[in-house]
């Protein structure tokens, strides 16, 4: 396995330590619970926003803790939802009188851990609400299924509620905003290669040199179907063909377009995809007024990308526009 790693079991703690050392003024690290939180959290005048999930999705979520975004992130091990106790202890430590908002990508393990933690915290008298994000169009949704997965679109929910919380919004208002943003956000992921968890040391699945996997999640699990490699123009057709009709996004609407790298794909390819998608959307009468290109929610070293569209209105644009300061930065 070709990775920068020591003992795979220490992969997550060693990464978290690096984040803390790189951001001594703004972040704190609590090793017992894989917890990264803002140095200034909790605050009495602000709802505390906590996101948990498995690790391996960096910069989500431990690297987007900061002003205008998350107050804390308590990841589990690679691809494993955090143990209930991590979430419970994190909630207890960062509880604000204005309440706590738990952001959870919709996966069985994460749902269980956060629901149990919420019950435990409420028993302690903490005012807690939980928001489930499920933007992945690859998963068929019905009452018979576990529902859709939360993937990169999650970033927009974090950003929106983060901005609103910073300006003093109360818990109910944050839930309203979060649910609204989630309801107008759609994502599809396409992988060129599988990813290799440090503890496993080998790829989670095999893809031939001319094969791609369409509809992948962010845990290296296989997607909905396998296809032959195709040129970027056709890849974008796959993305838009699945995402646009799903909401649907319609002629005359303004959207935010995110091309998210899954970890192993260079940003040059992401901008290439962005340019093609931007023009194909314009050709459909859908105008992109906000762009996001880079790595937001990854799947370790998987080569691939996801495309996310968010239907914009004045309220959402203003929240996305608000300033924020997070660990992952250029300067």
């Amino acid at each position: 396995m070709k990775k920068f790693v020591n003992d795979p079991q220490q992969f997550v703690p060693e990464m978290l330590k690096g984040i803390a050392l790189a951001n001594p003024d703004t972040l704190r690290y609590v090793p017992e619970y894989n917890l990264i939180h803002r140095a200034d959290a909790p605050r009495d005048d602000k709802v505390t926003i906590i996101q948990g999930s498995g690790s391996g999705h960096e910069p989500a979520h431990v690297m987007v803790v900061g002003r205008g975004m998350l107050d804390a992130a308590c990841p589990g091990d690679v691809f494993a939802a955090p143990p209930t106790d991590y979430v419970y202890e994190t909630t207890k430590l960062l509880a604000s009188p204005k309440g706590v908002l738990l952001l959870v990508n919709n996966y069985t393990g994460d749902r269980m851990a956060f629901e149990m933690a919420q019950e435990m915290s409420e028993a302690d008298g903490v005012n807690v609400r939980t928001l489930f994000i499920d933007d992945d169009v690859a998963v068929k949704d019905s009452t018979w299924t576990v529902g859709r997965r939360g993937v990169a679109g999650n970033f927009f929910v974090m950003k929106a509620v983060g901005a609103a919380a910073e300006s003093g919004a109360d818990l109910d208002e944050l839930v309203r905003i979060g649910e609204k943003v989630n309801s107008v956000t759609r994502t599809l992921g396409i992988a060129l290669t599988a990813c290799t968890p440090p503890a496993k040391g080998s790829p989670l699945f095999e893809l031939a040199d001319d094969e791609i996997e369409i509809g992948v999640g962010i845990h290296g699990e296989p997607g909905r179907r396998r296809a032959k490699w195709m040129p970027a123009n056709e890849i974008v057709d796959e993305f838009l063909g699945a995402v646009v009709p799903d909401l649907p996004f319609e002629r005359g609407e303004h959207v935010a377009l995110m091309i998210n790298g899954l970890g192993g794909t260079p940003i040059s390819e992401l901008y290439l995809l962005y340019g093609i998608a931007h023009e194909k959307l314009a050709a459909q009468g859908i105008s992109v007024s906000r762009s996001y290109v880079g790595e937001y929610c990854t799947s370790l070293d998987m080569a691939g990308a996801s495309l996310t569209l968010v239907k914009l209105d004045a309220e959402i644009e203003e929240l996305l526009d608000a300033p924020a300061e997070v660990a992952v930065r250029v300067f």
Partner: protein
Amino acid sequence: MSTALDTAEFVIRTVAQTAVENEKYFGDLDSVVGDGDFGYSLARGFEQVLAHWDEFDRDDAGVFTVKVATTISSRIGGTSGPIWGTAFMRAGGGLRGKPEPTVDEVITALRAGIDGIKKRGNSDVGDKTLIDALVPAVDALEQSLLAGDDAATAVDRMAVAARTAADATSSMQAMRGRASYTGERSIGSPDAGAVAVAVFAERLAQTWNDQTANDH
């Protein structure tokens, strides 16, 4: 004659050791249509159970099992933490305050554990999860014991039933958990959790007599 506590200790230690030994195998099973962390999660959690082995209260089998459950749910992540934690918690609760539980009480406690998983996972028989191995395993155990077989024989029957049921999950489509995202593609490989249950049951069957031997 071994007490219920002895038996609980034997069963849990065997499961814990087997989980640690099979980390890679269970992980590979979870890689087929899952995310490959199942073996890692179980191993890390049960390692903790073994590490704190002597610290658990041992008022009776039930109390002991409940204490183990707390460690499991506080140390195991993913889906496995909550569901295995819940199972041990409910089963232990059913045995608490019963130093010498009857066969009925034992079976009822095990069923309580299974019901805990179903409730927590909003899942049931047929969803291609470990439930599909647990239910027939406990049924077989009950029938054998009610038929008057000795414990070793009953555990054998349980192991056979678990294995058969685990293998049978191959032809099922996952309706719950991460594997369900792959839809039809989940058909053709067994469910990782169900296979783990079979492996645990078989190990118990193989080693059952040694345990009782040790007590004499």
